[in-house]
Every structure is written in C-alpha cells, then in structure tokens.
C-alpha cells in the first residue's frame, strides 16, 4: 500500500528538479578550488606551453636537431639561429625543443613506473596487512636505503646509457615513497565504516581495493606524482650531465648542460648553458607549484 502511494506521488512529479541541478562530483570541486590558486594555474599553464613546444617541435623550427654545420660552430644567437649553435654547428633552440621531449618523456614514464610499482605494492601491503605488509615495507626500506647515484651509475654502466635505462632506474628505485603513502592511507581507510559495509555486502577484495580504497588515495597519489615528475626530470638531467643518461647525439637538457663543463663556454658562450638550465628550472618549479596547489585543493580540511 505504502509503496503504491509513493509510486503515485512520484508520477505526478517525475524527477523533480533533475534537470536544473548541477551535480558537483568530488573532482569537480577540486578543480574549482585549483582554479582559484593563481600560482598553481601559472605552473599548469607553463607546463602545458612547454609540453606543446616539445610536441610540435618539428613544426616550430626549420632546423633539424642533428643537422651539423661545420661552417657555423659555436655561433652567437642571430636571425637564423635564434639561440646560436653548438660546437658542431647544430641549431641550439631546436635542440632545446627536442631536449624537452626527452626530459618530459623521462619524467612521465619513470613516474608511471614508480606509480605502477608503488601503488600496487603499497595497496597490497595496506590491504592485507600483517606479514605481507611487513615483507613489502621492509623491501621498501631496503630500496630506499640504496644511495641513488652510485646505484644509478652502476646500472647504467652495466646496461649502457640509454633513455630507457634511465627511466627504468628512476622508476625502480623511486617506488618506496609512493608505496608508503598509499599503504598509510589504505591502512586508515580500511578501518572506516564504509569498508565494513562493503564486507557486509559481500564485495570482493579486488573490487574493494579498486573501487573503494584507491579512489580515496588518488589525492595524495596525484600530488606525489606531480612532484615526482619534477624530481625525475632533475635526476635525468643530473645523469645526462654526468654522461650516464641519454647518450649524444640525442639532445636532452641534461647533456646540453655538459657544455658548461668548459670554462671558456661558461664565461663567453652564455647561450650554450643558460637556456637548458633555465628550461629545467622553469619546468621543475612549475611542477612543484602545481603539486603544491593540488595538495591544497585536494585537502578535505580546507573546505571553502
């Protein structure tokens, strides 16, 4: 009877208010809050611009990054070569664009590797707890004990310097940080009542992790991934600068900085070392600003 009554009422006024209302999902709220943060938006805009420059590099310059011109080496910036040329006469601005491709790719791919390993292991450790947790977290402790540069140098020396090995090294050595964050969050989420409700509903473990736990840890994962990309770009630059990263002639911001090893270049050919240094600086600081902004936007305690 009661059911019938309610049905009738509903038919008089079907989906009242359904069209007008605007559903604000949690992500939309976060985006709105991020929009208000000017520094973060500057960071985001800068990264988009740099990414576009790198992606459309072939259409932006008439030069090829590896076209050697022995007649015009170490030339100062002019109308043809806007940032001059290097010791083999290659156009420096072109190399800067192409270098951005490598640096950004390394940042993204190595962070993806880090996330993949870190989120999987952290999720398993947090969800199953006890021995599994103990084993995985001690493994994480061991990995984070490795001094990064010596290990990276050893691996690259064994496998040979290439862009793939650099990504692999950064990804394989960097996962413990993310694993710890994910594990910690899941440990606390696991005790919440909605997880008990999921158990009572007979939801499978896999779905509990994928649908209930991980979406709730997304906030911290995104923040640490953003800052992680910046760190990975810096690491790649450092390795390439040491000659252990991406091998020439492929340009990256790191190996372009190698020219600064030379005293003469440092003093008289500013266009060879300031632009790549500045590029690294701008991208890293933009990513960090964006990461900070995301952290604030995702923090539930700062609700308007």
């Amino acid at each position, binding site marked *: 009877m009661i059911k019938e009554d309610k049905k009738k009422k509903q038919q008089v006024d079907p989906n009242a208010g359904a069209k007008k209302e605007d559903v604000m999902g949690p992500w939309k709220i976060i985006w709105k809050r991020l929009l208000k943060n000017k520094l973060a938006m500057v960071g985001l805009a800068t990264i988009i611009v740099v990414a576009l420059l790198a992606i459309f590099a072939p259409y932006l310059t008439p030069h090829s990054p590896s076209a050697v011109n022995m007649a015009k080496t170490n030339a100062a910036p002019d109308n043809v070569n806007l940032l001059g040329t290097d010791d083999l006469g290659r156009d420096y601005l072109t190399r800067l664009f192409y270098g951005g491709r490598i640096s950004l790719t390394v940042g993204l791919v190595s962070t993806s590797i880090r996330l993949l390993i870190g989120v999987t292991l952290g999720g398993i450790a947090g969800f199953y707890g006890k021995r599994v947790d103990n084993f995985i977290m001690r493994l994480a402790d061991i990995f984070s004990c490795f001094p990064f540069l010596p290990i990276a140098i050893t691996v690259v020396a064994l496998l040979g310097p290439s862009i793939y090995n650099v990504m692999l090294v950064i990804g394989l050595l960097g996962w413990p940080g993310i694993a710890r964050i994910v594990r910690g969050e899941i440990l606390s989420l696991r005790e919440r009542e909605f997880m008990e409700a999921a158990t*009572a509903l007979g939801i499978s473990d896999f779905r509990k992790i994928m649908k209930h736990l991980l979406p709730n840890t997304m906030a911290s994962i995104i923040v640490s991934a953003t800052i992680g990309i910046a760190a990975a770009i810096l690491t790649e630059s450092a390795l390439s600068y040491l000659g252990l990263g991406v091998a020439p002639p492929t340009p990256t911001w790191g190996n372009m900085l190698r020219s600064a090893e030379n005293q003469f270049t440092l003093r008289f050919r500013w266009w060879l070392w300031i632009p790549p240094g500045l590029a690294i600086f701008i991208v890293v600081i933009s990513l960090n600003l964006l990461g900070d902004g995301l952290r604030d936007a995702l923090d539930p305690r700062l609700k308007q």
Partner: protein
Amino acid sequence: MSEIIAEKNDLIVVENLKKYFPIKSGILKRTVNYVRAVENISFTIKEGETLGIVGESGCGKSTTGRTLLRLLEKTEGDVFYKGRSVYGMSKEELRNLRTEMQIVFQDPYSSLNPRMTVGEIVGEALSEHGIARGEKNVEMVKDIIERCGLAPYHIRRYPHEFSGGQRQRIGIARALALNPKFVVCDEPVSALDVSIQSQVLNLLMDLQDEMGLTYLFISHDLSVVKHISDRIGVMYLGSMVELAPKEELYKNPLHPYTQALLSAIPLPDPRNRRKRIILKGDIPSPANPPSGCRFHTRCPHVMEQCKAEVPEFKEAAPGHFVACHLVK
C-alpha cells in the same frame, strides 16, 4: 547456560557467543590480556520481530551485532541463521549469505564512500552478486531509494551533498537493496537529531512491514528501543543480563541493572518525579571484569554469592530471561 531452545520460527539463534579482543604489548607483540567484549551471550530472534539491545557505551552491543554477521570473527560459541551455522560456512556460502543479512551503521558520515555516487553505493552489491546490471540495476536502485524516502534523481549525487538524515536513508537503501531478511541496525539514529530520528525510525518500521524484515536493533536510547522493539535485551559489560518482551521489561524489570536503567528515563512532567536508582562507581574495564556476577561491584543488592558465582541466564517467567541470583 543454553536454556534458550531454538524454535521453528527462530531466524537467528545465538549460542554462548564470546568475542575477545587480544591486547598486545611489548616489542614482540605478545598477547598479554583480552578485552572481553562479549561474554557468553545467548538469545534468539524470531522471524519478523525486532529485538532491541540496550546498554551503556562499551558494553558490547555493536560487537555482538558485528559478530552475528561475521564481520568480526567469534572467539567461541556459534550463530545459526535459519538453522545453519554462520561460522561453519565456506567463503562462497558466506558470500551468498550476505544477500540475506545486512547492517545499517551508526555514523552516516563515515559509512558512505565519499568518492562514489549514491547510485554506485546502493547498486554496487546488486551487480556484484549478479542480480542486476546496467539499466535494470539503475531501475532497482531508483526503486529502493524511493522507498527509503529519497528522489530518483539523487542517484547521480555524491554523499557530501546530503544531510545526516538523508545519508542515513542512503545507508538503509544500501542495506535493503539486496532484499535481505535480517538487518542489524547498529545505533542507526544516534547520530541524528531528534526530529530526524523519528522519521528514520518510522521509515525502518514501514520497511519492516513492507519487506518482512527482522531487525536486531542496537541502541543506548531506551525510548528509541521501546518505540521500535518487540523484545528487548539489556546488556552490561559484555553479558546479557535480562531479555524480555517490551511491555514485560518496562513493567516488571527483574535485574537491578535494568531497574536502574529504567529509572533514568526522564519523565515529561517535572512535578511527577520518579525515584531514581543511582548506581555507584564506574563501569569496570572489560579487560579485567569482576568475578562472579559482573554487576556485583555496582549492585545495590549485592550478596556474597554474587562475588563468587556467575548467575545463570534463566527463564524467570515465560519469555522473560534474567541473570541474577536474586531471582529464584
């Protein structure tokens, strides 16, 4: 102890259920003691009735409810649902049982996943158990949330857009989506303000009539329990001290604790004062419960016998069970 004999129409039979939580300490995490949250309780719930459980905070009410559903593992004893042992079931059987036994939680804020829409929250179990997917799932979810007093278009919204009372309705809809027979209501109205409390209580009672539900209703609010229950069990420090039909319990409380508890209900008329029984002292720690009758440290009628012997939980009058040495 098991004076409670299972009858034909008993949906749930609880036999000598115990739940201890280990207290671990030291670097080796050795178990040094146990919190005796639930100590040897037995009762039955008939099909279609509401059994209310009252008691102070920390007396093991919620633990009892959760152990019944096997959300927590028992320490000893057993729970039978329709004559089958809940603890003797395989993983697969238990998963199927989940469609028949559900729970409504106390806190409407932490019991809903903030990253899922209402449609996902309520419909998840339906697709997970292969009952309804896609369009049919949406239809079923709309139907159930409508029955719980929400509007169909709410399914696209997130929990943070609702008030406490509405969130509790979502929690109820989630529990009822699977069309269960038995629902544990773990203080479902304690977190709500009084005007909303009665709405939710009436909703629960309407749904009980419509869907033929059996409730285990846990609360610390005597008037709420009186309103909704058919029979009431009183718990103190992990044990059930008295269990009787509602009218009988309020008219003729036999256990000194129940008497003290009932005397604490405020009367609406200020001139009509009732003699209050004030209990001395605090509730003892369940990690180190008193010997004999657990209530003897605060009982106004304490005798020598109470300190040594655990009183039997026996039938004093038809359907009226009590655990007290005073009752012969």
